[in-house]
């Protein structure tokens, strides 16, 4: 057990701290979850790339910083930005999901055209994966792309397309090979959201806000070269990026920050002559959550060490999404309970705390438990891949639905 990073890394940490001290005031106040980045945020992003604090390992010719991959340095950057309470680089779906996919599987031309403007926040992307009938069973997606005069012609509907309103571009899974088995008939296309035939409707959620959209495609024509990877290989192309999303949803720094905010709230929230934290029952729940947050933090350090050794991580990694999302939700739940009746104030009410953020989080985090692979799907993955338990037996196909559709 060695928790020291060593002199080279301590020096690097010092460098990051100095940067944050001298430039931190230029960071944007709030980036917002789904909005197009502000001018301020775009400028901040460019500064971070220049210093190698975001897009660190992306080659220079594609607009990145071009450093060798170094897990510890990336970790130090994340830790220091988090500790300083200063937003790091943009973390939208274009940067976290599309860019790694293009770098791995895109053509040279696609990389040159899209990676740099995406990194710089000039091009905003949305993700067209889920459909009303294809959630956990994503590979059963039905949005079709038939070939006509050198174009794919797309018809169908996507859901959960966050940022679709603001997005310039979409990366989208469509069924190009109607006769192929379900995983083999999908292609990964990229196209402009200005293409005729696209309609975006906001999808209002239980939070009262429309964090997502539904996106409808009617005879949307996309040139056939706007495909990433080969026709029919879209499932495998997309899977290269789903891993990135699941990694994103389990950030130990984010959990620690939420927890510290909860302690502060419970110390400040007045109940009669005392404070919320003076209530022994609430305090006990707080201490229990703290131990869980610590467990996830050290579990994260263990994964980091495994990665450093080139070890894929195993069970410690498989459980991160399930546990982190649930824990984040429980932290918000305790905040609401600690506030008592005040906890239900929302919609900008008088006496509402922190802009209703705890209620919003409580509700939105339930969305995160469901999204990006539901808790139940996560449990299947843990059981099947982690514990090597038998898979759910496949039901006999009712005269092969796929084949019938192909024939029609």
């Amino acid at each position, binding site marked *: *057990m*060695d*928790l*020291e*990073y*060593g002199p080279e*890394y301590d020096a690097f940490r010092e460098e990051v701290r100095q940067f944050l001290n001298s430039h931190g005031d230029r960071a944007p106040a709030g980036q917002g979850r789904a909005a197009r980045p502000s001018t301020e945020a775009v400028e901040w992003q460019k500064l971070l790339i220049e210093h190698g604090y975001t897009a660190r390992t992306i080659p220079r010719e594609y607009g990145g910083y071009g450093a060798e991959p170094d897990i*510890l340095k990336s970790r130090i950057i994340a830790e220091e930005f988090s500790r300083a309470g200063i937003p790091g680089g943009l973390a939208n779906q274009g940067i976290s999901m599309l860019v790694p996919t293009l770098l791995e599987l895109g053509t040279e031309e696609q990389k040159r055209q899209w990676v740099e403007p995406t990194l710089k926040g000039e091009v905003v992307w949305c993700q067209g994966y889920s459909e009303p009938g294809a959630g956990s069973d994503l590979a059963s997606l039905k949005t079709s792309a038939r070939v006509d005069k050198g174009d794919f012609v797309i018809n169908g509907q996507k859901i959960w397309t966050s940022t679709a309103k603001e997005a310039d571009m979409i990366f989208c899974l469509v069924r190009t090979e109607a006769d192929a088995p379900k995983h083999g008939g999908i292609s990964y296309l990229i196209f402009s959201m200005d293409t005729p035939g696209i309609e975006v409707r906001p999808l209002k959620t239980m939070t009262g806000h429309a964090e997502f959209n539904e996106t409808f495609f009617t005879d949307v024509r996309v040139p056939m070269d706007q495909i990433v990877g080969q026709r029919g290989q879209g499932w495998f192309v997309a899977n290269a990026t789903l891993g990135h999303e699941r990694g994103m949803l389990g950030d130990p720094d984010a959990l620690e920050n939420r927890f510290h905010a909860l*302690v502060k709230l419970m*110390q400040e929230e007045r109940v009669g002559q*005392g*404070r919320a*934290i*003076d209530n*022994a029952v609430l*305090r*006990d729940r*707080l*201490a*229990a959550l*703290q*131990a*869980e947050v*610590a*467990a*996830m933090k*050290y*579990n994260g*350090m*263990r994964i*980091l*060490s*495994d990665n*450093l050794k080139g070890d894929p991580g195993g*069970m*410690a990694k498989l*459980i991160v999404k*399930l*546990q982190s999302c649930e824990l984040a939700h429980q932290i918000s739940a305790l905040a609401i309970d600690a506030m008592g009746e005040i906890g239900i104030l929302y919609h900008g009410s008088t006496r509402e705390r922190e802009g209703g953020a705890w209620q919003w989080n409580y509700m939105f985090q339930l969305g995160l438990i469901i999204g990006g692979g539901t808790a*139940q799907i*996560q*449990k*299947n993955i*843990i*059981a*099947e891949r*982690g*514990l*090597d*338990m*038998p*898979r*759910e*037996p496949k039901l006999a196909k009712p005269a092969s639905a796929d084949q019938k559709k192909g024939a029609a």
Partner: protein
Amino acid sequence: MDFGLSQDQKMLRDAVARCLSGTCPLDHVRECAEGEASYSDKVQSALSELGITGMMVPEQHGGLGMTLLDAAVVAEQLAYAVAPVPFLASHVLAPIALAQAGSNQQQAEWLPIIASGEARIAVAIAETIEARDGAGVTSNGGKLEGTALFALDFAGADAFLVADATGRLHLVPADAEGLKKVPLTTIDRTRSVGELRFGQVAAEPLADDGGATAARLRDAGRVILAADSIGAGQAMIEKAVDYAGQREQFGRIIGSFQAVKHMCAEMAARHEPCRSLVWHAAHTFDAAPDEASLAACQAKSHTGEVHRFVARTSTEVHGGMGFTDLLGLHYWFKRIGFDRQILGGPEAVRTEAATLQGWTRAA
């Protein structure tokens, strides 16, 4: 940066596991648990040959001078095999106490024979956490008076380390005049605890350090109990997965039913991060003593909660068989129950954690 076990610790883990798989099959555990002598001499001497008895004894006294993380690695394996041997008090807490607060003479007298496996000291510090049934020991003019409950590694101990009301530790030989030893029978037959009644018993005090050594023993003890519950929990998860992979109902392996699969996944998901939490707490005990109490509280309380869930869920996955004595699954269930209650249950320990951080208002 390397968060995890070193090569040496992995070798230690594997050596203990191999030793126990050879000497301590479940049939042997059952023999010990159902018989008169609860501890296994055979397993004890095998562990002694590996140097386990002296692992926490400083090298100058004939031990190996290892760390608490090393001891946690061993504890996990002992629990995995539900080994009926003394360890926590006799080979972890007593050497730590003597090394920290023992006189030169006490160290020279006891540490070498603890290391060699010739002597064992039980430890009674329960009342420094919470006194039940009015228990407590006072020290006056070198004489002890009162009652200490839940002395750990009780059976066959050659001496006892007992905390008085100020937290100071005293060494009492097992045959001291005026000492009455009453065994306490717990759910867990693989470990031994007992009650000590003192009627003006002459005792040798350890250094008067304002309870600092007793506090170190609480920290170390909690980490080792947490590590123990990880080993027992690991065994219970593996057994549940194995059973679910063999048992058939409705023409299917029950492990293919999501209801059963998800129970196993939930156990694994809650159990796995505990390992890192306990490793960190054990490491902190030696590397950052100022943070050790909070880390130990977190490890103890969280593993206590998680493994109660694991113990009942694994039993449920085994269905009716889990409830019987036939599979012996209950040995691990009870080991986990013991780990949870001893040296402070989750609520008591979380209250301490809150106080340590200044969350409680000064009275």
